[in-house]
């Protein structure tokens, strides 16, 4: 017994995704959070390990831009993502840039 209605697998991958998002609306939001967290945490942790210093604002911008690129692809087909989510992703990208440009560099007074 499945926990939700199984998608029709004969309509193509995009139709499967749309049916999944229709059934579980938070699916794409979870995917975008995963992309952001993956780039942000793995990038900053690796830099910290290699150089002893993690440039959080820079990795925040990198993670935001990565998330924005994935979001843009999802906007092409209707039903995968809504306008509010796209607006929030763009807003987070701008906020990350604000953080980067107004942050102090390493060793900067």
């Amino acid at each position, binding site marked *: 017994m499945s926990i939700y209605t199984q998608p029709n697998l004969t309509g193509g991958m995009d139709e499967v995704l749309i049916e999944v998002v229709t059934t579980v609306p938070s699916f794409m939001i979870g995917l975008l959070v995963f992309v952001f967290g993956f780039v942000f945490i793995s990038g900053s942790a690796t830099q910290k390990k290699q150089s002893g210093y993690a440039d959080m604002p820079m990795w925040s911008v990198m993670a935001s831009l990565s998330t924005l690129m994935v979001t843009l692809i999802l906007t092409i087909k209707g039903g995968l993502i809504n306008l509010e989510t*796209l607006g929030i992703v*763009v807003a987070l990208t*701008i906020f990350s840039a604000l953080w980067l*440009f107004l942050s102090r560099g390493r060793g900067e007074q």
Partner: protein
Amino acid sequence: MGEIKFVTGLLLTTLFTLAIVMFVIQFGDENDSAVLLSNDSDYSGIQDSLVGDVQDFNEDAEDSVDTLMSTTQEAGDQSASSGGQFKVGAFTMIRMATVIITVVFTKIFGDDIGFGIFLTAITSILVWMIGLYIWKAWKGSPD
């Protein structure tokens, strides 16, 4: 963080915002996307607003340089009598930053009027910081 980095940071943020918004809108148009950022009234309005502010900043900078070039100092003067050359587009900067922060906060936290106090606090401290930076550049204090 000095005044030059602060003003440059705000200007770069403005240009980054313009670039991202225009890129996303253009991406939607060229690919006939189902979800278009141009349908969002906040983002479609921010583009014209910021372009106008950057042009105002350009005029402010030119006026400021003209003021600097025409400033004279007599022997023994501690500073110029006018601080015009240090006020490069400060109020344009406030306007650009306020427009960006308003849209970002509205999108992330919603337009609930009860949450507006956070936006008011942030824009207020931005105005206060820019005022102090102008004073610091002109008179050398406070830190």
